[in-house]
């Protein structure tokens, strides 16, 4: 176990030292929050009870989690697989599955500070006021439900190579962000796009947060969709990993 925690710590240190990673993960959600905050639009996607600045904060939390997970898993993983480092780890006594598990864990660990940071920006610049317990509960909710993003990021890291990683990650970031209704409330989108949004994990992630803040019961559908994505992506990741393993690539 100490080997695993050493590896997880090693991964985390590498992530937090990377300026490129930090600039993208912290920069995107915070800058977008500030940019869009000035728009006095209705953020009312649930019975008009959620003001724009709150909608935007939750959306940017989701976007931040997405960006962090896709960059921590996706492009970085593809790069280090290309350098041969992943293979070097495979020939240590560390069990093969723990490489994947540690990657997902490290992604989850970097998602947490991003959520806190966006909430802090929401508090200071957006004037979002919640009870202390609500802040904690919201953070916990958005953090645990970010698991499908972390699995997606690692899966993408296994599917792409060092060259295709950046375009693929960028495309996913904006597809899941825009069509998931993170920049524009879903019920203000054209009908066709609304149904598309409801198929994306990013929509359901943000929606859980909004439901929570508007005092509603959290929708079972949202949980199910997120759990479904986690399961399907997890299986896909396992399949891809096994495939590479049998070819001696993983």
């Amino acid at each position: 176990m100490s080997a695993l925690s050493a590896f997880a710590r090693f991964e985390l240190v590498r992530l937090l030292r990377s300026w490129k990673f930090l600039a993208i993960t912290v920069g995107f959600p915070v800058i977008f929050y500030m940019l869009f905050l000035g728009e006095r639009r209705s953020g009312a996607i649930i019975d008009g009870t959620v003001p724009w600045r709150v909608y935007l904060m939750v959306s940017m939390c989701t976007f931040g989690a997405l960006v962090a997970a896709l960059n921590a898993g996706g492009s970085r993983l593809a790069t280090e697989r290309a350098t041969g480092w992943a293979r070097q780890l495979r020939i240590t006594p560390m069990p093969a599955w723990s490489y994947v598990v540690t990657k997902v864990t490290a992604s989850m660990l970097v998602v947490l500070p991003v959520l806190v940071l966006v909430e802090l920006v929401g508090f200071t610049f957006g004037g979002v006021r919640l009870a202390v317990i609500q802040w904690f509960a919201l953070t916990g909710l958005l953090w645990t439900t970010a698991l499908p993003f972390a699995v997606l990021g690692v899966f993408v890291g296994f599917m792409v190579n060092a060259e295709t990683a950046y375009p693929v990650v960028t495309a996913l970031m904006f597809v899941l962000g825009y069509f998931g209704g993170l920049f524009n409330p879903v019920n203000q989108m054209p009908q066709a796009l609304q149904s598309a949004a409801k198929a994306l994990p990013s929509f359901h992630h943000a929606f859980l947060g909004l439901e929570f803040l508007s005092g509603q019961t959290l929708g079972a559908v949202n949980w199910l969709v997120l759990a479904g994505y986690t399961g399907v992506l997890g299986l896909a990741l396992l399949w891809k990993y096994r495939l590479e393993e049998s070819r001696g690539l993983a």
Partner: protein
Amino acid sequence: MVDADWDVTDSRGGDLALRFGGVVRRYGRHLALDHLDLEVRTGEMVALLGPNGAGKSTAIALLLGLLRPHEGTIEVLGTTARQAVAQGSVGAMLQTGSGSGLPPGVKVSEALALVRRLYRQPASFEATVERAGIGPLLGSRTNALSGGEAQRVRFALAIAGDPKLVFLDEPTVAMDVDGRRTFWRMMRQFGEEGRTIVFATHHLEEADQSADRVVVINHGRVVADGPGATLKAAVAARHVRFVAADPDPDRYDRLEGVTDVEVCGAGVTLISLDADATARDLVRSGIPFKDLEVTGACLEDAFVALTGRACRDEPGRPL
């Protein structure tokens, strides 16, 4: 997977560091290893010599459990390849193509510290630094190393777990002449501690100078196997060909320098370690001949000539 039938009760079993028994490995239709049989005993330093694509890297990947054989058995330190890796008894330096094989964004000391943590009984940090000669590099970022420096660091990572058995796939590929010399000196010292070292190379010189034993692999098979010191002489081997009225092999076998005789109709080919002496002796013997021709033997032939171990008789099996 079909298990090849080899004798498990081999009397030398206890001394064996690794063993291939009839191993077949394909990539699609390409046959990378073609019923490879090979044994390496504990403490040996063995070079796998062969041209690119001969199957050396595939053999090493199989020994590390990175690949599974399609047929045959592989035994590493008395167990399976995967088990030997899981026990931490094996270390390796693999080919990394254009990559450094190192994690980007950390110091060399951090990478080494992590890899040590992954083993239950690693070698001491200081011993590993000393053995690989990476003291001056510890504070450098892994992405700021030269090719040769990165190779040394990768060697340190390969031995950080204090392995009994080490595999090196073209370990000196990015090193200059001095770097190579230093590297092999360190390697020899490491091997003298009773460890088994198997390295792949396509440099004859390197195999010859560094290994106790050279195993020549081509087309996925062992074509020759013998002590490295004789290799240099082996490359001096030549084919002496001529047409003779009397194609009786026994008449040519005793000519100076000849190690092997092949007769095909009236054509005679002598494999000789000293073509000049053989030609002189042939003239002196008074045997009538014509169309004398001397050509360089290929490494494979040279090795056969020297070690007396013929290539396997049966032709390459179809897929």
